[in-house]
């Protein structure tokens, strides 16, 4: 770490890797005169996990385990994007059964709400509204119960597989989902009354970290950060995937581009996500197949293994060798809670991904902090970091 010296009357501070309000292991080397930020350089990489290198040494299905651990606030959108990309390479995108598509949309929208809950909780604590953290995490616990019931684990269920799902929804899932749907509007009303018209919250977030439309495009910001600056670019509308064109939902847009606009856009997005979940819930009552019926891609269900020899052989091949993907490269994008999450995957025809390159939305949403922080106070920079909602598992990969 080259020691940063001092000149003039500015003081150089390291808002370092361990800090209560950097939302992870971000180090901001701030040059401050009094309380005003003169320069804000960022040092990232403190959570670099080499996920892309690990993915190159695992089977196609195993790789989704490490890939899910990139954006740990909504692991399912990572798995969804990876799985869609590999299915595109295999050419089975159309053969995915309807029910698998619906469950994937359901879990991705639930993950979006859960991720926005963690963002709202920690963002509010940074600004001082401690009690909002408990309300937000209450909604998140219900959603984690759903993922745990469906996939087996609270955060990284590894439930989406190339070619479909790991298994059908368990019995109690739909009734628990109805409980969440019934409870959600009242909870959202509480969250809104807590903060939306709170004078302190408005003073702390209005006109803070203003990102103009040109700057948002120049910095490559996507998702709520771009939509708060005026452009309604949402990957679910622009490049529909997994059946999103079948649901009506609108994309909240604002033009001010400050922290309060991003706050409102994300709250409206939670409502829109619940609107999609209600539409999916109606279609989930009809049972149906949950995986493409090509045993070369997805292991046959366990009960068929004891009955037929081919199923046993397919299962053995799937576990011992995995499947092969025809050579080629593909770019698949998905609308994650933080923006356009994309995977550029290259396959050389083998049974392991040759290269998995991630387009991390948090990395590009975070870069503009260097410009947004200058001129404001240190406390405003904390609000800006919170409003950009970076996740460092994704920034550092």
């Amino acid at each position, binding site marked *: 770490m080259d020691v940063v010296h001092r000149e003039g009357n500015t003081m150089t501070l390291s808002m*370092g*890797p*361990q*800090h*209560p309000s950097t939302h*992870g*292991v971000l180090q901001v080397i701030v040059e401050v005169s009094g309380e005003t930020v003169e320069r804000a350089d960022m040092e990232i*990489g*403190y*959570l*670099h*996990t*080499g*996920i892309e*290198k*690990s993915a190159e040494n695992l089977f196609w299905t195993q790789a989704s*385990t*490490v890939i899910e*651990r990139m954006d*740990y*606030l909504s*692991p399912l959108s990572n798995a969804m994007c990876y799985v869609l990309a590999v299915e595109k390479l295999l050419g089975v995108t159309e053969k995915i059964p309807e029910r698998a598509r619906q469950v994937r949309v359901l879990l991705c929208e639930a993950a979006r709400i859960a991720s926005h809950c*963690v963002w709202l*909780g*920690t963002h509010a604590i940074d600004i001082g509204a401690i009690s909002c*953290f*408990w309300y937000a*995490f*209450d909604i*998140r*616990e219900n959603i*984690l119960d759903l993922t745990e019931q469906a996939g087996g684990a*609270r*955060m*990284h269920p590894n439930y989406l597989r190339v070619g479909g799902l790991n298994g059908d929804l368990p019995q109690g899932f739909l009734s628990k989902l109805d409980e969440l749907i019934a409870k959600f509007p009242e909870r959202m009303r509480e969250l809104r009354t807590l903060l939306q018209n709170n004078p302190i919250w408005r003073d702390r977030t209005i006109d803070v970290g203003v990102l103009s439309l040109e700057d948002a495009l120049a910095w490559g910001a996507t998702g709520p950060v771009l939509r708060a600056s005026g452009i309604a670019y949402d990957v679910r509308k622009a490049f529909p995937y997994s059946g999103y064109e079948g649901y009506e939902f609108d994309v909240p847009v604002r033009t001010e581009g400050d922290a309060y606009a991003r706050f409102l856009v994300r709250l409206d997005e939670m409502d829109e996500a619940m609107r999609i979940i209600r539409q999916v819930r109606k279609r989930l009552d009809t049972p149906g197949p949950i995986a493409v019926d090509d045993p070369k891609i997805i292991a046959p269900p366990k009960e068929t293994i004891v009955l037929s020899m081919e199923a046993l052989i397919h299962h053995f091949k799937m576990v011992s060798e995995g499947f092969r993907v025809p050579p080629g490269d593909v770019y698949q994008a998905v609308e994650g809670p933080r923006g356009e999450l994309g995977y550029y995957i290259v396959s050389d025809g083998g049974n392991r991904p040759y290269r998995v390159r991630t387009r991390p939305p948090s990395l590009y949403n975070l870069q503009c902090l260097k410009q947004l922080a200058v001129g404001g106070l240190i406390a405003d920079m904390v609000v800006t970091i919170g409003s950009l909602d970076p996740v*460092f*598992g994704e920034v*550092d990969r």
Partner: protein
Amino acid sequence: MEVMPGQFLLGKIDEVARWAQSSSVWPLTMGLACCAIEMMSVQAPQYDIARLGSEVFRASPRQADLIIISGRVSQKMAPVIKRLYDQMADPKWVISMGACASSGGVFDNYAIVQGVDTVIPVDVYVPGCPPTPDGLLYAVNLIQQQIRHGGRGGIFAKA
């Protein structure tokens, strides 16, 4: 300590000190990766670490007794973890939360330190990826038992 008739409590000073110290083990605000989100859920009302007296997450190592390594420790973060541990006031305890902190977990590669115990001494390892909040609560319980049953801490504070 045992309750004597007439609502009296009899015990050695060291036991009283250990009882007080064990029921307020303050952790350091230091989240790394997915386990940090589960550490936040432990603070949320459903799992509520306040029942163990550890809900006060201190921002500075000077005021923290416990450091929870919640997440994967990368090569760049190892010296930072070591410095934070050294700058904590004695007596101090370490929980290595999750498979990545305890042994590198699923990331057996160049970027992750294969176990934080090669950098700092660890008291309690918590299995899981990420461990459920109950796992972390049980780990804090184990730390409390260590303090009560004669580990570090107490009136003459063996560091």
